[in-house]
């Protein structure tokens, strides 16, 4: 929003947003700032382990940064697995809207069409 002599009223601001003015939250400056803040917070959660001893049920889970690394890697693994599975399982979202090839009663009323992949 450009700086004007008068501060725009709340209503004007909402109207501007409805018209498509860019919200402060989506401006590149804010997004950069958010990345920095989250980076710092992420680092802090790991650094905090210097002072806070994490009780380990087993052995590896007591290592510094275990939860960070394990969480990150398992998410990457899940996303990649989902991606791979998607190659096999994904279909256009009108897949089930096409009529089922059912009994002859359906077929007889249908005009003959070239046989394709169901």
């Amino acid at each position, binding site marked *: 929003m450009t700086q004007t002599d008068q501060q725009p009223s709340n209503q004007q601001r*909402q109207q501007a*947003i*409805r018209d*498509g003015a860019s*919200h402060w*939250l*989506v401006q590149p400056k804010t997004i950069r700032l958010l990345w920095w803040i*989250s980076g710092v*917070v*992420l680092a802090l*959660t*790991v650094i*905090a*382990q210097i002072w*806070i*001893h*994490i*009780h380990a*049920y*087993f052995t590896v*889970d007591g290592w510094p*940064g275990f*939860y*960070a*690394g*394990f*969480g*990150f890697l*398992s*998410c*990457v*693994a*899940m*996303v*990649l*697995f*989902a*991606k791979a*599975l*998607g190659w*096999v*399982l*994904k*279909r*256009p*979202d009108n*897949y*089930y*809207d096409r009529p*089922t*090839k*059912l*009994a*002859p009663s359906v*077929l007889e009323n249908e005009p003959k069409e070239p046989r394709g992949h*169901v």
Partner: protein
Amino acid sequence: MFEFVMPPAFILIFGALLVALARPTLRPIIALLTPLVTLYAVWQVPDGVQMTATFLGYQIELVEGSALRRLFATVFAIMAFGGVLFAFRQSKWYELSAAMIYAAGAIGVSFAGDLITLFIFWELMALFSTVVVWCGGTESARAAGIRYAIIHLTGGLILKIGIEGLYVATGSLEIQALTLESFASWMVFIGVLINAAAPPISAWLADAYPESSPMGGVFLSAFTTKTSVLALILLFPGQPLLIWIGLFMIFYGIIFALLENDMRRILSYSIVNQVGFMVTAIGIGTELALNGAAAHAFSHIIYKALLFMSAGAVLYQTGVRKCSELGGLFRTMPLTCICGIIGALAISAFPFTSGFVSKSMISSAAGYEHLSTVWFLLIAASAGVFLHAGIKFPWFVFFQKDSGLRPPEAPWNMRVAMVLFAAACIVIGLFPNMLYNLLPYPVDYEPYTADHVVSQLQLLLFAGLAFFVLLPLMKRTETLSLDVDWLYRRAIPALAGKIDRALSAANTVFARGLAGFGNWFINSFKQGSYRYFSSRAPMGHTALWMAAVLALFLVMTLVI
């Protein structure tokens, strides 16, 4: 004040009938008051069997109280109230009425003292949840409702076979812990698990729930799967098989939600995922684990309803259900957005939300039992929950890109319902003892230790980092994912069609052949009969026929 007078479920059924019969202006008042009265009645149920009746010659126990049963009935009643509040100005009266009877079924199951009562209320839920699905009002809702009903009625049938088997074998209809050693207990096990959306038929859930109306989804998210969790706690606590079934459900939910584009279908898959946590906990079976399962069911119902409310509000305001067409709605629906985020944080078990205080009991239970594989998988899954529901849902619906949609904020009753449930998520998170005091076993568990909070934050925030790093891989595609429902929606009809066509071709060939043969046979008699029977026929033929007739007589005298 009042003593226990009638089963809480009957109050809700009575209220639902009143809603149907009352004049339109009175309906909202009745619909809103009934769940509150029911909630009060739930708390008047003391421990032990309270009411018996005779049904078809069997002694049945309509109401049996215990801490666990009251916990579930409480959250079902709260849910009925929240759902009605969210829906009463938008839903048709029959949707409200059906949803209330559906809730009554869930409360009836919670207090069922024997298997017959459980079965009756179980079927009541199946019937009226189907009606709620149908209230989606579209052709796909109609079809999905029929598939849903078939699955649940089949599940009910399997359950009934099991119950009958148990009665024949033991003569008892008591609800007690069973072991999987007889055919009948297996049938009960399978029947209950079908309602929990356990593999291999988890697909019914994500098939039916997203087809309901924006309001109906809120009701559907709560009751069926969680009554099934209660039944599993009562009937199969500590059944080791449940650990693996639960873990499968957890990862099934995550993976399919990651692939999904429809916002309410994402949430549906995450129901399977969350119920998986509870099922795993029931399989672990220690007091802490069972407490964890019950507590998680309680907090899950509230935050999942909240998520369905925020998705429902978006759907109601925009009519758009695909993530690929949504985005940027935080601009004009800030309250819905904030409530959705609170629900998403709660489902991800963020510290200071309800999910944290309940889910950490489950993973701790696995840790204390030294089930290392289970524990590591549960931790990975916790990160995965943040990935598929905690960030994915709010990100794609409310942020992501500017879709150009500028819907106004949801109607006031929807907003009030969302704010109440969001507040509940946070209040339970801040004061976990409120929930812990309701649990079946005494709780000796402190969720807010420094190391719990730090480790959970590390896990979740780095899962969040993974989401944004991998964002290019998560680009929404206008697709659905094949699931087991493909078998009965495509493969079996296709196979049936194939068999049908093959048989009809065979039939044509056979009929043609038979007719041809018959023609030839009759013609050969009509035109060629002189060869055998006429006076001009050769002597030999006549002798042959005589021999044949005599032989026939001989055989007949021997036989008869």
